[in-house]
């Protein structure tokens, strides 16, 4: 009964929003007139209604298809994960279709030339259509997100009301230049023979590696102190979330770990690679710094030897503070999706000023694949590995290749901004999506990248001939 009701609600909302958007396009200047044409196009050519139904109905039946219920924690996470993924998948594809189909069709039918005969049109094509696509995406995004939210909150009201958590990483995991300076100062005094004979860069690099390893591991019987900067909070407790790695030890090996924060202390059992969370009461001391003392007491079983445990990723040790509502995070995350769609639209519009529909679509898909790969790009970054250049090799060719490589890595690191704006996993983990992240996405992807694509496309339109004959 509930899915049926949700589907009707979602579709109704979609139609209402579309009508409102269409009405808005009917008043106003030439730019909005063009936007209105795009809306009419995607509606009357059935692209929007069909994909809207697929989106909403698919979303409504997702719990049935996945066989999960949002009532339990795991089910909730799965539903959120797949729900947001489904919405993103459909919307990104539809965005690409709408943008490419519309402009390619204008061009190939000769309408681009014909309509450009109205004054000022060359500058309006891309922005007008872009606004239309963004509007159409919003018209689909709002109902789909509403359905997802209702699915979660109707089934388990406490899940709907739950608060999002902001994960905080230990200060020591971020080795700063100052840390390195003071470490080197100390080491040079302690063992000048060992540290004083290397080149300054070499010793800095070594110091950094050393400090990182030190912060991220505890040997058996040893202790480690991790500091966290908490944002101001009213909450009485924070959550400590741990996921240790135990070297070559078997996956099921269990070890003992002592946790101490202020007066509070407890011994917990941790398993290799599994996440555990501990609630830690906060004292109303007013200080925002929390120091966590971790003591590694070794394996539980006598015959097993686990020499050390490691915190491999930044999220291996985190303090989680309650921050904002779940709904707020979901909304910001979906806004980031809208921003990504906006860029995909700008890119598609830009390439379809000179490519036909199938090729333009292919281009967009290639971008999506490359960009989602951009998230892994960080794995290959190795700051210490700048190559020594032999002056004899400083030829022009070498210079060119270096420039090319630099540009390539610039692009790849740019694509990381894309991966950073994909926050659906953060939301389904119940974590907090910050306004800063939204702002950064809006500025880089929605502003800079999209703007560039629109400007490039407009230049192409202005510089090319568009005869009005069919298929010329």
């Amino acid at each position, binding site marked *: 009964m509930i899915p049926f009701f949700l589907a009707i609600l979602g579709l109704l909302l979609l139609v209402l929003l579309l009508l409102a958007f269409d009405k808005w396009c009917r008043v106003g200047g030439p730019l909005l*007139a063009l936007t209105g*044409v795009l809306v*009419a196009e995607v509606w009357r050519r059935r692209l929007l209604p069909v994909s809207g139904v697929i989106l909403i109905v698919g979303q409504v039946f997702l719990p049935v298809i996945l066989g999960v219920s949002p009532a339990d924690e795991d089910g909730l996470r799965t539903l959120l994960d797949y729900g947001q993924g489904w919405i993103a998948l459909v919307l990104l594809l539809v965005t690409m279709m709408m943008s490419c189909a519309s402009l390619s069709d204008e061009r190939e039918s000769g309408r681009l030339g*014909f309509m450009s*005969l*109205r*004054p000022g049109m060359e500058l309006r094509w891309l922005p007008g259509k872009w606004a239309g696509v963004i509007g159409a995406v919003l018209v689909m995004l709002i109902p789909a997100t509403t359905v997802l939210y209702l699915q979660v909150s109707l089934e388990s009201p406490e899940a709907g009301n739950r608060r999002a958590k902001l994960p905080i990483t230990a200060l020591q995991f971020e080795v700063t230049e100052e840390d390195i300076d003071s470490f080197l100062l100390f080491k040079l005094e302690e063992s000048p023979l060992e540290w004083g004979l290397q080149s300054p860069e070499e010793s800095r690099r070594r110091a950094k590696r050393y400090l990182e390893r030190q912060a991220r591991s505890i040997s058996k019987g040893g202790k480690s102190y991790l500091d966290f900067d908490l944002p101001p909070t009213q909450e009485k407790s924070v959550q400590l979330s741990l996921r240790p790695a135990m070297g070559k030890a078997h996956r099921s090996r269990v070890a003992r770990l002592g946790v101490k924060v202020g007066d509070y202390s407890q011994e917990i059992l941790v398993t290799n690679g599994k996440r555990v969370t501990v609630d830690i009461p906060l004292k109303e001391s007013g200080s925002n710094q929390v120091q966590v003392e971790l003591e590694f007491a070794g394996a539980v079983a006598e015959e097993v030897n686990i020499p050390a445990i490691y915190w491999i990723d930044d999220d291996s040790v985190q303090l989680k503070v309650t921050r904002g509502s779940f709904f707020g995070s979901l909304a910001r995350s979906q806004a980031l999706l809208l921003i990504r769609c906006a860029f995909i639209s700008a890119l598609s519009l830009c390439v379809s000023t000179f490519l036909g529909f199938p090729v333009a679509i292919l281009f967009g898909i290639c971008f999506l694949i490359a960009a989602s790969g951009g998230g892994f790009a960080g794995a290959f970054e190795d700051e210490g590995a700048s190559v020594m250049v032999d002056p004899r090799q400083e030829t022009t060719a070498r210079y060119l290749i270096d420039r090319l490589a630099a540009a390539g890595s610039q692009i790849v690191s740019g694509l990381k901004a894309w991966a950073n704006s994909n926050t659906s996993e953060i939301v389904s983990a119940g974590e907090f999506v910050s306004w800063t992240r939204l702002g950064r996405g809006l500025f880089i992807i929605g502003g800079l990248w999209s703007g560039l694509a629109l400007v490039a496309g407009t230049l192409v339109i202005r510089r090319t001939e568009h005869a*009005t*004959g069919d298929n010329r």
Partner: protein
Amino acid sequence: MSESVIEVSGLWKVFRDFWMRPRVEAIRGIDLKIQKGEVFGLLGPNGSGKSTTIQVLLGLLFPTRGEVKVLGGNPGSSESKKRIGYLPEDSVFYPFLTGREMLNLCARLSQVPEDCRKSRVEELLRMVGLTAAADREIGDYSKGMQRRIGVAQALIHDPELIILDEPTNGLDPIGVRQVKDWIRGLQKRGKTILITSHLLADVEEVCDRVSILYGGKVQDEGEVEDILEHQNQSQWITTTPKEDQVSVIRECFRDQGVEVISLNGSRRSLEEKFLETVKMARSDGEVTAGAEEGGQLPSFLGGEAKGC
């Protein structure tokens, strides 16, 4: 009649392929001068470069060589776009918009003031006889109906220069008649009109001057009156004479030194029959899904009655 609206000298247009190799020399040195208030016809067989010339004038194609001035400016400048109305050769309108929406869109894009927009659209729909079909999608229109919408959109912003690429193509005889009347009417209101057509009879009737193109060059140009010099022949239409009267009449002519070249019985023309049948059907209140009887030019177009 001295201000020239279009000035073209030594225009060349070479179409190139992807690798910039020349493929077609569509126009090879055309000179044109069209005066204000004139109806000018561009004639020529298929592929002689008429549409290409027009698209260069509109700034849709860039000239390979030569000088082009339209309304005193460069082709394709924002200023000239406001003052030109264009009916393309192929109907390239949004197939998913209705006729009324299409006209509205064109009016908005041309920044026709909002209070005039509605009345202009309705007047033009009435003029082209599409009021009843105005809320159907253009994709569902017949070819001639699309032409009619095309004519309407070319006039919506009350342009000074009207360029019609084969305006009568696909129109029924009534439509052709009306287009000719509209062209004459527009000329009276001070518009300059450039048309292309294969239907020489139409051109002959409405144009002041024509250019005949072939192979991308102007082969002949001049006033219609001058080009069509009178041959030493004339045609009389009489009631049909009887067998024996014919020989008497021939005799008579011979005595006067006039030679009878041919003599044939006249039939009613198909056009007359067609017009009569359609007129009867209309007066019987027959319903059509197509175009209806069109009307006069709306008053907003140039002339005395300025405003909306």
